[in-house]
């Protein structure tokens, strides 16, 4: 018989102007189920007023990003046994740094607008992904048929970034990674983020790279953009001489 765990979900609740609070739901689960499965079960059998975003269930749409026990996770690919134990607690909260629509659902309009602003392409040939060998995280290795550079616009990096928490004017890791991707095809695109709230606002916490579920590696992309901009400025000095 398959193993069963009894765990408690502590779910962030927020409706309209009412103050936020946490509701607790005790669930009987398989440890191999995903965190999103439990949330869906809460909605189906315990509280139909729970609001959360999800769609594909296989880490392609980026809709189900949430904070799970304080860390940004794509809940559809986060197994329960990775974040708690039998008898343990899973605290689920909405992503930080985005306005809460209701409960676990946030408004990500700003992220999408910024991605468009920097010319990020959601699909691109693998040879334009830009990440050199050796910089990929996880088990995957670079090969012609893997999609490793595609940002799924889940917003996990924006939520994890400490600078995005304190200023809304900072473009954020996703948009900067998009600008980097765009700049591989069009080097002039780097100038779109060459300002105080762009590539220079990053403080190198690399938490964006740490939480990214798609190997976009925004931290490296931001640093690479800086390198390119510094190089072009230095070369510009010599050209003027």
């Amino acid at each position, binding site marked *: 018989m398959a193993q069963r765990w009894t765990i408690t979900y502590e779910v962030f609740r*927020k409706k309209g102007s009412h103050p936020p609070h946490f509701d607790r739901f005790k669930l009987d689960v398989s440890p191999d189920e995903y965190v999103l499965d439990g949330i869906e079960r809460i909605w189906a059998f315990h509280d139909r007023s729970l609001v959360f975003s999800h769609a594909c269930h296989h880490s392609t749409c980026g809709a189900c990003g949430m904070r799970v026990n304080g860390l940004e996770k794509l809940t559809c690919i986060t197994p329960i046994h990775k974040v708690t134990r039998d008898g343990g607690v899973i605290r689920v909260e909405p992503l930080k740094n985005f*306005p809460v629509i209701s409960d676990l659902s946030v408004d990500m309009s700003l992220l999408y607008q910024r991605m468009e602003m920097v010319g990020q392409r959601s699909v691109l040939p693998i040879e334009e992904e830009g990440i050199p060998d050796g910089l990929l995280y996880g088990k995957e290795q670079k090969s012609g048929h893997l999609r490793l550079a595609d940002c799924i616009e889940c917003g996990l990096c924006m939520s994890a970034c400490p600078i995005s*928490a304190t200023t809304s004017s900072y473009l954020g890791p996703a948009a900067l990674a998009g600008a980097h991707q765009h700049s591989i095809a069009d080097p002039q695109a780097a100038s779109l983020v060459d300002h105080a709230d762009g590539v220079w606002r990053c*403080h190198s*916490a*690399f*938490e964006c790279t740490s939480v990214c579920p798609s190997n976009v590696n925004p*931290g490296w992309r931001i640093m690479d953009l800086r390198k390119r901009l510094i190089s072009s400025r230095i070369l510009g000095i010599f050209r003027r001489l």
Partner: protein
Amino acid sequence: MDEATNKPSASNWLTWFDARRRDVGYWAFALNRITALGLTFYLFLHLGVLSQLSQGPQAYDHFIAMMKQPLFTAGEVLVVSAGFIHGLNGIRIALNSLGVANAFQKALFIALMIVAILVSFIFAVRMFTA
């Protein structure tokens, strides 16, 4: 929609120091801020100490004698440690920003912090035995 909940704000600055469950880079980020605040505080403290000069040699000598207590020496060791941690971490950030060793930023941070601890220990021994 409640715009206020979760909105980025300068008042969230305390979250910078909450590195629980975060990765090495975030700890480096938090440590850099803590040491920067500590060093800034020390700078003002230092200026305050220097202002003792204006109250005559006796007041200054009395203050310096107090500063030689072990508790204050321990504080000075902390200042030296903060200087090394902040400085070496800054070198890591500068290297990363120039595109150097980005793939090894975690290892680089750990290595530099080991250097900072070793150097701080040498300073501590010398300061307490001087």
